[in-house]
């Protein structure tokens, strides 16, 4: 068991000191050190009578960070507890801290709540209670389920210790905190005038340590000053926050009035719940109004203390401190010692925490802690008729081809009786304004009919037989989900190729290296995943909506080339396509060229007709009247050439990429090398040869006839069952 030292800085603290020291003795603390900085009451006498170690320092030597560092140096405990002179530990306090440090070896600090004493004013009592309740854990899914059966479950979850890591609140309070000696030795308290604990919390998380909020390590504590003293204390507190974290408290008259009104309403409600009424409630209302109003004003003043004349500042400060520093002029001795005498650097701008967490924090979770372990496989699970499937999708918009593929298949899986749910992983909060019912509605409107639920994020995660990642942005989130039997990855394209050298490219490549069973949208893509990443992979063929994409009753022209010129999608090689069409136009100036797929005007060296973005039905009519289609892809084969073929339109694609894996080198598709002149020649060859066009048209319709979404769903379902079977196999081998 780790030894524990408790350090209590004291100045005129006789009121609660005896009670505090008795509580520490009762809790079994191994070593107690009282540091007195010039008490003129009975504090020294109480400390001596309690038999604790006593260190006396000059009042001028005291510093919140400096003196606590001194205390830690003078003690030996592996755990170092700091308490203020008016904080009395509640029973079970030390045991709760020991439990917090046992959670993880990287726990560097833990802190507990401050409970109001019986005589604490309603404003402070409510504030303390609500403030610390904000750190408590929400009941887990399991607890939520249990709630239906057992009312106490959520209460116990709320009192469980909460691990906090970088991105979580940096809050730490030396009123009641405990530190691992190794962590304190590495970080140490900054020598700042105020908020040394907050600075330590920030530094600790940045250094990769964890901290714990332990609701059961409680102390009785309250700063119940008079109204003016409170205001002066807030002045000190917010001056300290500005100096240590750069936080500037905003102030606006209307906002302040609203805040005060809301706070006073809260206090009145609290007081009423405590049984106050009539005159007492009126007194609370008046006091709360002064308290909260004064707080808003003095906290804003504290944030701007550096601009206030020193005599005024001294008057406003409860500590009587007149000097103030801006964030760039920290009094931290560590930073000032390291800086040159006349640094050419301008004072840095310190910013508060701007995000609750980093966009890619789930990636670091995976890299640090690995994927969440899968459930033990159940024999025969791969063959079960109905499966629980959860599909994790990236943000989407109308017209997203990848999402259309996913929902064409997923809606069919749902119709086959599988239990299907959809989960949106939104790293960059692109769809934060779109609430779940709207997401679900849009999926139905943009892609395919889906009856199941759609969730934003994973707060309501319920587990699944197979969790299906569907894009590089979803894989790391899927890897962290628990209660799963297997994970699969529907890969629509080799996404690292969508990015230049970048974080996104690195993360996209990383997604293939976590043993997810891949179900790739072409044999070419499957082989690439196996060869380059040694991934386990199956393939499926994209389906075509045959009821839409079919030859329409319209005369086919002999002079029209249609080109999918979606310039915003880089892999479509639009500049190459435009060069090819320029070449073709030079040879055949009378040729009608139609561009579609983009709402933007394309700057081309030939005249053309622009159709913008078309609906599937409109596309089928365009394909039915055109002579030849052109559609290029530098990565995986897309649906568009298949849809052209389904409408009887001969189509030209790039050779040597992915098309051969589906159509073969002499299939219904005309293939041309990545060269504008070669592409132009291939197009010209088709335009010149009606017999060849007729043959390609016939072959294309025949070939695509078997490429249905039902067939694609069969292949994906087989891939999902393969993922489950691999789990069974791995379990039987191990």
């Amino acid at each position, binding site marked *: 068991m780790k030894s524990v030292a408790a350090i209590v800085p004291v100045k005129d603290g006789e009121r609660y000191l005896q009670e505090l020291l008795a509580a520490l003795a009762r809790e079994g603390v191994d070593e107690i050190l009282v540091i007195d900085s010039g008490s003129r009451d009975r504090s020294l006498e109480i400390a001596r009578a309690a038999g604790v170690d006593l260190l006396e320092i000059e009042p001028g030597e005291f510093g919140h960070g400096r003196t606590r560092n001194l205390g830690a140096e003078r003690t030996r405990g592996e755990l170092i507890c700091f308490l203020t002179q008016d904080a009395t530990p509640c029973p079970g306090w030390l045991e709760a801290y020991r439990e917090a440090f046992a959670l993880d070896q990287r726990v560097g600090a833990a802190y507990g709540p401050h409970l109001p004493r019986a005589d604490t004013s309603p404003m402070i009592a409510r504030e303390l209670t609500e403030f610390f309740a904000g750190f408590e854990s929400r009941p887990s899914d399991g607890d939520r389920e249990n709630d239906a059966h057992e009312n106490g479950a959520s209460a116990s979850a709320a009192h469980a210790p909460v691990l906090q890591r970088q991105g979580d609140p940096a809050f730490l309070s030396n009123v009641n905190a405990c530190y691992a000696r190794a962590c304190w030795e590495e970080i140490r308290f900054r020598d700042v005038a105020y908020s040394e604990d907050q600075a330590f919390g920030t530094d600790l998380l940045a250094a990769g340590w964890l901290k714990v909020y332990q609701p059961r390590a409680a102390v009785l504590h309250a700063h119940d000053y008079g109204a003016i003293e409170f205001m002066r204390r807030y002045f000190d507190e917010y001056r300290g926050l500005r100096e240590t974290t750069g936080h500037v408290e905003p102030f606006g008259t209307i906002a302040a009035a609203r805040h005060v009104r809301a706070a006073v309403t809260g206090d009145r409600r609290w007081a009423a719940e405590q049984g106050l009424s009539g005159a007492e409630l009126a007194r609370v209302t008046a006091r709360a109004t002064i308290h909260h109003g004064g707080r808003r004003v003095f906290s804003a003043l504290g944030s701007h203390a550096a601009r206030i004349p020193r005599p005024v500042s001294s008057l406003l400060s409860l500590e009587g401190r007149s000097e103030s520093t801006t964030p760039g002029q920290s009094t931290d001795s560590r930073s000032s010692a390291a800086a040159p005498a006349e640094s050419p650097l301008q004072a840095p701008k310190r910013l508060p925490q701007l995000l609750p967490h980093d966009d890619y924090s789930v990636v670091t979770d995976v890299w640090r802690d690995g994927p969440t372990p899968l459930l033990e496989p159940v*024999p025969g699970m791969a063959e079960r008729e109905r499966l629980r499937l959860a599909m994790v999708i990236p943000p989407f918009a109308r017209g997203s081809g990848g999402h259309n593929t996913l929902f064409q298949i997923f809606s069919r899986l749902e119709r086959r009786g599988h*239990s299907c749910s959809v989960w949106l992983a939104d790293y960059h909060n692109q769809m934060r*304004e779109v609430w779940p*019912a709207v997401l679900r509605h849009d999926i139905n409107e943009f892609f395919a009919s889906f009856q*199941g639920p759609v969730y934003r994020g994973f707060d309501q995660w319920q587990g699944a*037989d197979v969790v299906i990642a569907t894009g590089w942005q979803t894989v790391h989130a899927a890897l962290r989900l628990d209660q799963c039997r297997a994970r699969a990855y529907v890969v629509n394209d080799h996404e690292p190729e969508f990015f230049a050298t970048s974080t996104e490219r690195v993360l996209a490549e990383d997604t293939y290296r976590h043993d997810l069973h891949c179900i790739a949208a072409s044999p070419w893509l499957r082989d690439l995943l196996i060869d380059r990443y040694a991934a386990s992979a199956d393939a499926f063929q994209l389906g075509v909506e045959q009821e839409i994409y079919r030859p329409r009753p319209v005369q086919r022209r002999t002079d029209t080339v249609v080109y999918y010129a979606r310039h915003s999608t880089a892999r479509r090689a639009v500049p190459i396509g435009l060069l090819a069409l320029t070449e073709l136009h030079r040879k055949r100036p009378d040729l009608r060229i139609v561009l579609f797929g983009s709402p933007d005007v394309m700057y081309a060296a030939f005249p053309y007709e622009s159709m913008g973005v078309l609906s599937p039905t409109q596309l089928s009519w365009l394909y039915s009247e055109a002579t030849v289609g052109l559609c290029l892809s530098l990565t995986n084969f897309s649906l568009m050439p298949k849809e052209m073929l389904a409408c009887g339109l001969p189509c030209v694609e790039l050779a040597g990429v992915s098309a051969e894996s589906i159509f073969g080198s002499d299939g219904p598709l005309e293939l041309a090398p990545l060269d504008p002149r070669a592409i132009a020649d291939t197009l010209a060859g088709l335009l010149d040869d009606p017999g060849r066009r007729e043959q390609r048209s016939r072959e294309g319709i025949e070939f695509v006839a078997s490429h249905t979404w039902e067939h694609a769903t069969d292949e994906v379902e087989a891939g999902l069952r393969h993922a489950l079977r691999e789990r069974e196999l791995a379990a039987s081998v191990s």
Partner: protein
Amino acid sequence: MSAADTSSEQRLQAENERLRARVAALETELVETQARTDAVVGEWQERAYWLDRWHLDLNALMRRPGASELREALRAVRAVMWRLKRLKRRLMDS
């Protein structure tokens, strides 16, 4: 192998089969429960479309100061309207 060993092995096999069948039944039950839950949540989301579209959280709205009072006032107005309608009907009938 003795008859006792054979009998013991058969018992174990039978128990194994029974447990497998039980697991399969429980798994089926789980899928069915999940499917029902999904259907309920899906249907609820269908109904909540306009609330979500307009970013209306009725629970949060009704927690706001004055919301309950407004609701009570509307109920009172509604009660008066109903009484007036009843009175009008009675007068028309008589």
